[in-house]
Structure formats: structure tokens, C-alpha cells
């Protein structure tokens, strides 16, 4: 029993008529359309196990992918509806902190970006009253709080860590954010980007984290700042944030555009 390989999406026939070649090229171009989509397809929604077990394969994987993405967006809505803004994630004693706390990013630990804190300014844009820039000193002067919570990765593992910083709702209030807007987006120094729903942005445990375990946030955990949300999976918690914007236009995200669920929370 041979399972279809990803390369099998476009059959490699030895001899093709000119018409077939044109068709193939057209298919290939359609497949390669936007870069995120290409990555998504390259990683493949192939149906190995299912095809093997049922003897049938889903021939039009593009259609299947489209349908699955639609269901994922429907799941975003359901999760938004399920989300209780007052439900708190569990907190833990310091003795339960995972040491060392695992490093995780879309690149290896040897490629961690080091950002110079001197002369660093956080940009704020979009639907906000004060499109100011914020220095780390200014952020440090806002009321600070701490949490020891569980970080849950989309892969399934989890680890308990201790973060400190400014309650994000407080920060949004300071910048005069339109809290009736739908999304808050984040741009990061490591070219990562993501976005969250406003109810989660306003959740009492959503923290603009400036410290880890009582010390300035080290580069590997996201210096100069990270958004820490114990109600969201790891990939929703951006590190090395350089710009925060409030918007009603769906901003997507680095992983979300490739197929990870956008709401991505618990």
C-alpha cells in the first residue's frame, strides 16, 4: 500500500503533451500563489493515513484545505463566544516553576534577536487616542504586577513560568485604545507577528511582560517585552514586541496564516 506523498499533489508524468504542461503550470502557479499559502501547502494537508485506511483519497486538496480553514474561522467565533472574560487561569506557587523554562520560537535558540534597550521605543498605532512611543522606563513606571502561570504550547507540552509587567488592559487604557475594536495586533523585532481578540486583550491576566522570574526579560524570553496570556497558546504570546496596533481589520499572524487556529486559546 503506497500512501500519496506531498509531491504527489502534482503528478510527475514522464511525457506530457503541451496542453497538459500548460495545465500543470497553471495548477502549480495557483498552488504557489501567496507565500503563506505555499508554505501551508508544502507542509501539506495530505491524507496519508485516511487514504490508506479508507482506500479513497481527497483528490482536490485545495478544496479540502479551504473547507478546513473555514471551519477553523468558525471555531474562532465559537471560542470567542465561549470565552468568559472573568475566568482566570490557574496560578502556581514559585516552587512549581519549570527550570529551566524552555525556549521556543520559529527559529533556534542560537538565532535569538538581541535588541538594544537604550533608545528603544515601543510604537503604538491604529485605533488609539495617543499614538505615542513608549520607552522602557515609561513602561516600567506604570503599575507592575506578577503572575506564575502555565504556558501551554500548541504542540501539547506545558511549562510554568513567572512573568511580571504591566496589565495590558491598563496599558490599552493609557493609550486611549478603542476597546470596542475587534483586534490588537503585534509586530515583533524577530519578524514575528500575531493578533488577538479584544476580550482577551482586556483579560485581567493579560500582561505586557517586562520581566521573567524577577529579572529583566532576557533576550531568549523576548526582550524588550512580550505579551503574556495564560489563556492563550504559546504562539499567541508574541516576544520582542516593537509595535502594538488596534484595528478592526483581521491582522492574522505568522503561524495563523499557515493554518494554526487564530483564536488559539483555552
Amino acid at each position: 500500500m503506497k500512501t500519496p506523498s506531498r509531491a504527489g499533489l502534482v503528478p510527475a508524468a514522464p511525457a506530457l503533451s503541451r496542453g497538459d504542461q500548460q495545465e500543470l503550470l497553471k495548477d502549480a502557479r495557483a498552488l504557489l500563489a501567496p507565500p503563506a499559502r505555499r508554505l501551508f501547502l508544502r507542509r501539506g494537508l495530505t491524507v496519508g493515513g485516511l487514504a490508506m485506511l479508507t482506500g479513497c483519497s481527497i483528490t482536490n486538496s485545495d478544496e479540502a484545505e479551504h473547507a478546513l480553514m473555514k471551519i477553523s474561522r468558525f471555531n474562532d467565533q465559537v471560542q470567542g463566544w465561549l470565552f468568559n472574560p472573568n475566568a482566570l487561569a490557574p496560578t502556581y506557587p514559585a516552587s512549581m516553576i519549570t527550570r529551566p523554562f524552555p525556549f521556543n520560537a520559529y527559529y533556534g535558540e542560537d538565532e535569538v534577536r538581541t535588541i538594544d534597550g537604550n533608545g528603544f521605543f515601543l510604537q503604538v498605532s491604529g485605533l488609539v487616542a495617543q499614538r505615542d512611543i513608549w520607552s522602557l522606563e515609561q513602561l516600567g513606571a506604570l503599575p507592575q504586577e506578577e503572575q506564575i502561570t502555565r504556558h501551554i504550547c500548541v504542540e501539547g507540552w506545558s511549562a510554568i513560568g513567572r512573568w511580571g509587567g504591566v496589565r495590558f488592559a491598563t496599558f490599552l487604557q493609557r493609550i486611549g485604545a478603542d476597546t470596542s475594536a475587534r483586534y490588537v495586533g503585534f509586530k515583533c523585532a524577530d519578524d514575528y507577528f500575531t493578533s488577538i481578540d479584544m476580550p482577551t486583550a482586556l483579560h485581567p491576566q493579560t500582561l505586557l511582560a517586562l520581566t521573567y522570574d524577577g529579572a529583566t526579560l532576557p533576550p531568549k524570553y523576548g526582550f524588550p517585552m512580550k505579551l503574556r496570556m495564560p489563556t492563550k497558546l504559546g504562539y499567541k504570546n508574541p516576544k520582542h514586541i516593537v509595535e502594538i496596533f488596534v484595528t478592526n481589520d483581521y491582522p492574522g499572524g505568522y503561524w495563523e496564516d499557515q493554518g494554526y487556529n487564530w483564536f488559539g486559546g483555552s
Partner: protein
Amino acid sequence: MAQLAPSSAGPTGGIPLPIIQPAWVRLAHWLNVLAVLILVASGWRIYNASPIFDFKFPKELTLGGWLGGALLWHFAAMWLLGVNGLLYLTGNLASGRLVRRFWPLRPRDVLADFVAALRGKLGHDDLSHYNAVQKLAYLGAIALLVLVVLSGLAVWKSVQFPLLRELMGGFDNARVVHFFAMSGIVAFVVVHVVMVALVPKTFLLMIRGR
């Protein structure tokens, strides 16, 4: 109770065979097969991203290609499993089928039927009644499906369902419960398929109802 089919004549000669499994049960069964197939195959790919134990599932048996694809399948098929399962349970309770087909279930009968089955002396002439081992196995499968859904909810929404999370022993343990519920379901499927292969007319029964 069993309905009479209008046109088809069975081997009894002229007298139509009664419908043993109504259409809604058969439909629910096959939709459940599809949902479980997708959920298990995609779940194995999700497991592989961060294995709980010291093994991974062979990639060829998994669905989704990569973690993101597997999650898309998993969180689509969960609706099929959940909605179909709720309709199945509601139909069984409302129609009285659950009581009719599964009651009574006595441990002594299970033991007796199990021993008879091992000796190859368990009859399968009357498919309109489940033997005690069948009753236990099918109820067990239903219980495992309920457990897999509840533990899955605890993994997915550990903040929103604190009671469920604590019942499962916390987030990490909910994953373990989810894994073992899946394992139980897969074990049931293996035995179930072997039994159907041994008594092929039960396969026809689940297709045409008689």
C-alpha cells in the same frame, strides 16, 4: 419496535426480514466511523509533535501532514463526533432503544457469554439481540467516546472548564486521559472489526439494516 420492510423478501421466503438497525442508527454509526478515523489519524500527528511516551506514531498512519494541518482536521472532525454523538444518544434515549437493546446487563451473563464465545459456542443466529459481551463492549465504547470528548474539552479549554480540568487531574494529565481514552477506542475498533469479519452478516446488517 422493528419495522417491516415493504418490498424486500429475505431467505425466509416471501416474508420480509424485519429492520433490526433503523436507518438513523446506521447513519450515526458510519458518521461516527468517519469522525473517529479522522480524529485518531490527526490526533496521532498532534501527539507526535510532543509525545507523552517514548514513541511516535508512524507518519504514514497520520493525517494532516504537519501539526497545523492535523489540528485543522482534528478541530473540524470534533464537530462531527460531538454532534453525531449527541444525536445518537438523544435518539437512543428518546426512542427507548438504549433500554431495549442494552438492558438488562448482568455480570454473570457477560462471563457466561464470554466463556461461550471463547469456546466458539456463542450463537449469532438472532441479530436482533445483543449478547451480554456485545452489550458491555458497545456501552464501553460509548463511555470511552464520552471520556475522549470530555478530556479533549479539558485539553482544549482548560481555563474555561475548570471543573473538567480538575476532574482530569490538571492540564497535563488531561492529555494522558485523552490518550488512554483514544487507546481504548482503538482497541475496541480492532476487536469490533475482527468480530465483524468472523460474522460477516453483521456487516450487512449495519448497511441495510437487516
